[in-house]
């Protein structure tokens, strides 16, 4: 049962990833990316990490991608840009990307071949024994052995936050000048 679900999710992830690249409409492409995220989240879930699965949805699909789509929506897609996109996408220009992905694909097939063999799924031995990790265990791991990493990540996020605020601050914005001018009309 799990294998079937896994393969379906994997197929969805692969197809939508391909569609992400090939879609001419940027918003459509991003939506395929969201589907990829959801499929990956399902795979996380199937592999026994519901927490990672939930985070994948909440953070990537639910927040980051929303912002991506939001920005893309703002950049007003017209008929013209769609045509330009179509001309941009040519097989000859993407050989490098295809080659690199092919390497990944070979790798993936190799891994999957091992995964799909029955004795591994049954969980007797091998590298893919499915064992659910609870949030508690995850937390203990994060705040135990990996404490330093958490702190570093937190500091990076904080610095990112501060620089984001700095960039977003409206310095000498003409609109603001207007607003002040408006008080006197």
């Amino acid at each position, binding site marked *: 049962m799990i294998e079937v679900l896994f393969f379906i999710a994997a197929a969805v992830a692969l197809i939508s990833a391909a569609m992400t690249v090939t879609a001419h409409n940027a918003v*459509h492409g991003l939506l395929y990316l969201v589907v990829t995220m959801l499929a990956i989240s399902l795979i996380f879930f199937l592999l026994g990490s519901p927490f990672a699965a939930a985070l994948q*949805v*909440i953070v990537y699909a*639910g*927040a980051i991608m*929303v912002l991506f*789509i*939001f920005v893309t*929506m703002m950049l007003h897609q017209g008929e013209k840009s769609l045509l330009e996109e179509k001309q941009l996408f040519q097989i000859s220009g993407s050989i490098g990307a295809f080659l690199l992905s092919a390497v990944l694909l070979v790798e993936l097939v190799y891994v999957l071949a091992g995964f799909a063999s029955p004795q591994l799924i049954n969980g007797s031995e091998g590298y893919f024994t499915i064992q659910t990790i609870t949030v508690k265990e995850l937390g203990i791991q994060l705040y135990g052995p990996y404490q330093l990493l958490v702190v570093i990540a937190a500091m990076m996020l904080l610095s990112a936050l501060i620089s984001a605020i700095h960039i977003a601050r409206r310095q000498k914005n003409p609109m603001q000048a207007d607003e002040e001018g408006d008080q006197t009309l």
Partner: protein
Amino acid sequence: MSDFLGDITGDFIIPIVILVALLLAGAWSTWLERRILAWWQDRLGPNRVGPFGLLQVVADMIKIFTKEDWIPPFADKVLFVIAPMIVMIMMMLGFAIIPFAPGIQIAHFDNGLLFLLAISSLSVYSIMLAGFSSNSKYALLGAMRTAAQMLSYEVFMGLAIMGIVIVADSFSLSKIVEAQADMWFIIAQPLGFFLFLFAGIAESHRAPFDLPEAETEIVAGFHTEYASMKFGMFFIGEYLGVILISALITTLYFGGWQGPWLPPLLWFILKTSFFVLFFILLRAAIPRPRYDQLMAFGWYILLPLALLNLLVTAAWQLAPTL
């Protein structure tokens, strides 16, 4: 044989009954809102079709189903059709983890709360896509407001819920309900409750936080171009959202199905209805803040309070171990 029957009931009949009941509740809560609002506003409300106007919903359904299913020629057709479906699906999925009563729950999910946050974060897409695919400026403005509002308030909602998780020591909703046998979490988490309430109103984009569809400003916001059943889905989706948030408030802060004398399911329905009525009362009573005021309220007031709540709760919980 009896096992098989049990499985059938557990796996199919209960979910189907719940889903049908929810759809009906969503539909009739439109009637309830219209009647109650009318009562509070010195009006009559729909009282012509059937006893007390109860069949108004049926009449509306007939109208909405037989209306021309119009898609604007300038719209992104596929997304335009998908958008209202997303909201319905997400709201229905959200109910899967709600423990209506002992044994009446579709999915016994250990990470129920995380699932819920995931669902609520995905439901943004319905509105964003509706706004984008309509290819109309009012819809776009609605989508802009939605993206900012819902993303922000999701943060506060998540942080408010974490207080509950700390107190109950679980992400599972049924365990959270059981943990409230002695004391409702509204007492342990009063601040968390208010934060969750505000975030819940904003997430279900109901008045006074109905900026994505503020009719006096941007006509109907994200669903300006929608008509017939696709509009109906947004409409029912909104009411399902209200019921979902009310059910969550009940489950997280008011002991869920727990209560004396009456059967648990009835307790749950009573408590949830109370909050649905509260949502309607809010709509009748309060004007709408401006978009930037709402965002400022969230980031300047709710966020520090939510963090404070989390900190204090964690400290309280850890204090005995020190």
